[in-house]
């Protein structure tokens, strides 16, 4: 009888006072292992692979904005050496052609940017060039969007608006097979 009485006296509840400690322990573990990685980057769409030789279509030189990057990370834009800082502005002027220059794109839909690099070009330089060209288009889209709809261009704007802008200034960037002069 004494035994049962002892059992009765025992609390039937589980002692939860160490729960906080356990939770703290887990919390600290996750705090330490957490890396809130910022997964950001420049999204590109690669052209599909085809075994056939691309058929050479002769383009008017005025519509082609050729950018060459050599193994020393120097830029040759339409036959002229150019520092990277000017690339964005030059590309914008070329695509939009505000003064109807004879040597620049007839209209934005006909503009083609041709990018060619060497196998020895550093990835950093390549990405910077790509970034500047993308920025040129982004700025043009933004300006057009402001002019037409009064809102800044963004990916979540109305689909029809976005499409209208993209139809007016399509992003055409063709990458040629790189040369192999400076391979390490």
């Amino acid at each position, binding site marked *: 009888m004494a035994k049962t009485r002892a059992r009765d006296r025992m609390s039937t509840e589980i002692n939860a006072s160490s729960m906080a400690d356990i*939770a703290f322990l887990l919390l600290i573990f996750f705090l330490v292992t957490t890396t809130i990685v910022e997964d*950001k*980057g*420049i999204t590109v769409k690669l052209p599909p692979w085809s075994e056939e030789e691309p058929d050479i279509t002769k383009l008017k030189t005025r519509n082609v904005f050729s950018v060459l990057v050599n193994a020393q990370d120097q830029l040759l834009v339409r036959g002229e050496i150019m520092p990277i800082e000017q690339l964005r502005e030059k590309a914008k002027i070329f695509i939009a052609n505000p003064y109807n220059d004879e040597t620049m794109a007839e209209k934005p839909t006909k503009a083609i940017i041709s990018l060619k690099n060497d196998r*020895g*070009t550093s*990835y950093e330089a*390549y990405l910077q060039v790509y*970034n500047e060209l993308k920025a040129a288009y982004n700025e043009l889209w*933004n300006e057009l969007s402001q002019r037409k709809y009064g809102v800044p261009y963004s990916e979540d704007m109305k689909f029809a608006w976005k499409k209208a802008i993209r139809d007016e200034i399509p992003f055409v960037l063709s990458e040629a097979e790189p040369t192999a002069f400076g391979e390490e």
Partner: protein
Amino acid sequence: MAKFSKKRGKANPTISTASLPDIIFMLLFFFMVVTQLRDAELKVKVTTPYATELTKLEEKSLVNYLYIGRPVQRYQGVYGTKPRLQLGDKFSEVNEITLFLERHKLKVPESRHGQITSSLRVDGDVTMGIVQDVKTQLRKSGQLKVNYSARKDPKRKGSGVEGE
């Protein structure tokens, strides 16, 4: 006066900690959700370059990662210092990409295969040679959606457009 002192005397001065576990658990769940355990140990040094026109990668389960860089000091004895490709947690050859992509595809429902993005985490100092080979292989494997991983440049001004 008597009223006040009586009341104060009765009150328990200890703060109840009964809700502490709940608060801690809440924090815990928050961190568990945002935590992304690094599934692959990096065997190559990758310092992604700066850029301004960045796009955020939305769904982690739809992204596969390809690392390109020079092997870290520990592996230089075996693998040398030439830039290498790392898939998952091991050094790989470029032609192994196709299999790697197929393996990743198995984990993704078929209806969403078109949304798979390959994130290229490439070191800034690497030359384009190997990057080009990887790009060609990706094209051959039909994986055309690619994201060049980069960090936000604090100095340069971008167009201010959050990309697609």
